[in-house]
């Protein structure tokens, strides 16, 4: 018997020196003792799982995939990846209608958007929530994001496509499900900001949901399929048309750049550096080419920036914060970087609701203590969580910039 073959992992779990720093920064371990914590669930458990499958522990589903353990790890162990890869490899694949609905943001958005006023109304009703709670186990206390009447894509094709292709420099915009079905205004704001910098905004030939919710809900084959289609479209844009790809959602950008190769084994090495967040693209353009945005001399605006977990992992909050600082008369607070608790579809599930709200509690408290007009963040699900759990409005930095432009 070759013992070595049972000891090989794609992940660098053997770099772990058991220092437990990851557990210190795990938002779930802090509030839910049912979760074994990142060290045990990640590198410690991996060692055992490699010996025998049945060391796999279903409580790994409590992991939010926030990656804060990886950010904290002094030995660069990919703890979050180890946990997610184990879930993909070992977890029981039982079909759950609830998870299917939550994971298929694309499909559900396509179905809801044409009937947005009705869907929004019905989803807000108490009886609907009671049914969703008891039948599907989607927590009744959760406030649903509103669907927009008509998608961003259809609006764009009708009103903007021709004008945007006349710009000398162009980028492709990965708008994501949220902008397409829930908040087309953010897409419009992005076009306004980019156009003000002399850059045209195009869409990819084909865009599918980035797949983050599919991954976290265990629909791996479908996630892979969508990832491959997205990477094809991104290649077409980057390599054939020489147009880099920008996103407004920190999670979409993170998923395409890092989760595709790490969790789905979809190679993106030839285009990865050309996929980034809008605020980073704008920062680089302004720093390198000295282009400037012209702002209104507006009244004082007070904002507090919240760093989403995947933004913390990307390390790019700096760009959004620096852009916000350019707005005249802005008063900016940077909130402590901590998880808001929602983690995409995680916080919608009945069994996670309490954990989700407990995790976010100290962030909500900090927000309520700030005298501000808006919380600003690059993540749509953080926005839902913050708007549901505090009295403050939450906006994307690009929308704040767009509002301040002349």
């Amino acid at each position, binding site marked *: 018997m070759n013992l070595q073959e049972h000891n090989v992992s794609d992940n660098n779990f053997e770099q772990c020196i058991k220092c437990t720093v990851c557990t*210190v920064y795990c938002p779930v371990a802090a509030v839910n003792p049912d979760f074994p914590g990142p060290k045990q669930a990640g590198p410690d458990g991996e060692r055992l799982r490699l010996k025998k499958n049945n060391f796999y522990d279903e409580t790994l589903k409590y992991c939010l995939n926030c990656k804060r353990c990886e950010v904290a*790890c*002094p030995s*660069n162990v990919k703890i979050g990846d180890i946990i997610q890869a184990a879930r993909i490899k070992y977890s029981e694949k039982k079909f759950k209608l609830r998870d299917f609905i939550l994971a298929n943001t694309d499909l559900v958005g396509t179905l809801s958007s044409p009937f947005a006023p009705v869907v929004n109304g019905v989803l807000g009703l108490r009886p609907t929530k009671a049914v969703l709670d008891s039948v599907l186990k989607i927590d009744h206390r959760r406030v649903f994001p509103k669907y927009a009447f008509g998608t961003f894509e259809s609006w764009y094709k009708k009103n903007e496509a021709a004008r945007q292709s006349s710009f000398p420099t162009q980028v492709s915009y990965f708008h994501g499900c949220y902008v397409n079905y829930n908040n087309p205004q953010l897409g419009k704001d992005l076009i306004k900001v980019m156009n003000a910098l002399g850059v045209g905004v195009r869409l990819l030939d084909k865009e599918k949901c980035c797949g983050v919710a599919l991954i976290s809900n265990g629909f791996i084959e479908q996630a892979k399929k969508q990832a491959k289609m997205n990477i094809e479209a991104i290649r077409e844009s980057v390599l054939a048309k020489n147009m880099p790809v920008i996103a407004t959602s920190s999670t979409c950008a993170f998923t395409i750049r890092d989760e595709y190769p790490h969790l789905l084994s979809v190679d993106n090495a030839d285009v990865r550096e050309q996929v980034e967040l809008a605020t980073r693209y704008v920062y680089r353009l302004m720093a390198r080419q000295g282009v400037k945005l012209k702002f209104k001399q507006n009244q004082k605006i007070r904002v507090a920036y919240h760093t989403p977990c995947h933004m913390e992992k990307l390390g790019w909050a700096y760009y959004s914060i620096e852009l916000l600082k350019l707005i005249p008369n802005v008063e900016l607070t940077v909130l402590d970087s901590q998880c808001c608790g929602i983690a995409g579809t995680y916080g919608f599930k009945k069994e996670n609701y309490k954990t989700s709200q407990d995790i976010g509690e100290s962030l909500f408290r900090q927000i309520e203590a700030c005298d501000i007009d808006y919380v600003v963040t690059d993540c749509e699900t953080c926005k839902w969580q913050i708007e549901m759990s505090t009295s403050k409005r939450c906006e994307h930095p690009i929308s704040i910039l767009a509002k301040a432009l002349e």
Partner: protein
Amino acid sequence: MKFDTIIIGGGLAGLTCGISLQRHGQRCCIVSSGQSALHFSSGSFDLLNCLPDGKEVENPVEAVERLKLQAPEHPYVKLGKEKFEELAGSVVEFFSQAGVSVTGSACKNHFRITPMGTLKPTWLTLSEQVACEHGDRLPWKKVAIFNVTGFLDFYTQFIADEFHKLGTECVLREISFPALERLRKNPTEMRSVNIARVFDKRENVDELARVLKDGRGNCEAIAMPAIAGLARTDVLECLEREVGTRIALLPTLPPSVPGIRAQQQLRRAFEQAGGVYMLGDSVLRADMEGDRITKVYSYNHGNIPFVARDVVLATGSFFSQGLVALPGKVYEPVLGLDVEFVENRKEWYDMNVFAAQRYETFGVKTDNEFHGLLNGAALSNVYVAGAVLEGFDAIKQGCGAGVSILSALFVAEQILRK
């Protein structure tokens, strides 16, 4: 990204240097590859406990000159006695302004209680921990030692045995109530930090106060593990007021709650002074022009470089991967600076694990102003601070924190003088 100074490494040295520079009007960025060794801190900072010849040190300021002969490359020798005394004398005030309250003096070591209950010399101790005046006795005749039931990183019996040798009588008590019992569902992760979070809630502090009051008997002090709150800093104060007895927080095995609080507070002080702290990123390479580094590139920021007038390397020692050992060599992985080590690997270590280990003294070579050397020549805008430096044995000489703090303050002075 333009800064005045970029600091690679966000532990004790990097933060000390950054806070000092920010206070003098600079704009700095700290890039830190994960959390620092402060997470394993005892809650005390050592300056100089022992000379390389084995002689114990009572007064570090007086002893420092003797290093010149015994360890000529020691960072303290590069500082010189006067600078050493001046910088060491400024640290209590420096930390206090940063919101970290410590007690101690560079002219007289005091004693800290170790997680095993023994006494060891040290320089500064966080105010919430115990600073003993003498090395052969405790300030109490009878102590009640409490531990949380199921908490495995605190050994009450060892501590009681050691306290007994020091002439202090001990009674052992347990702390158990529902909020703590809940943590026991996950025994492997029942760590200091998770327990400390329980005491961030007021009602649990009140409950703890009741348990301590009931169990202290006629003891003049209570000793318990340092698990008194992670986010809140007033737990000890509340407890002492409620219980009416002196409470000594003793260090636990890692992770260290007081160390984490110190790290978080120093980072907060740095950011409040306008500094930018980037966690979880690694510097990959640098552009050079002549004897200067002009740009620094990191993993997260790709083709957007950090541009700064000066660069400080404060990446720590082997643990933090500021130094990497291969079978035949030791190297500095970030900038590839010259590293002092001996060729013959057999001379790196002593088979007696308690003896001085020579690899502890390996580190980056610098000139007397702490400029890093590359191929034997000093880089004019690259400074080196902290555990990555050559010439000292932090464990045997008890000087790790002192080297980190003093070299960082000195480097900040050099940068500001330009």
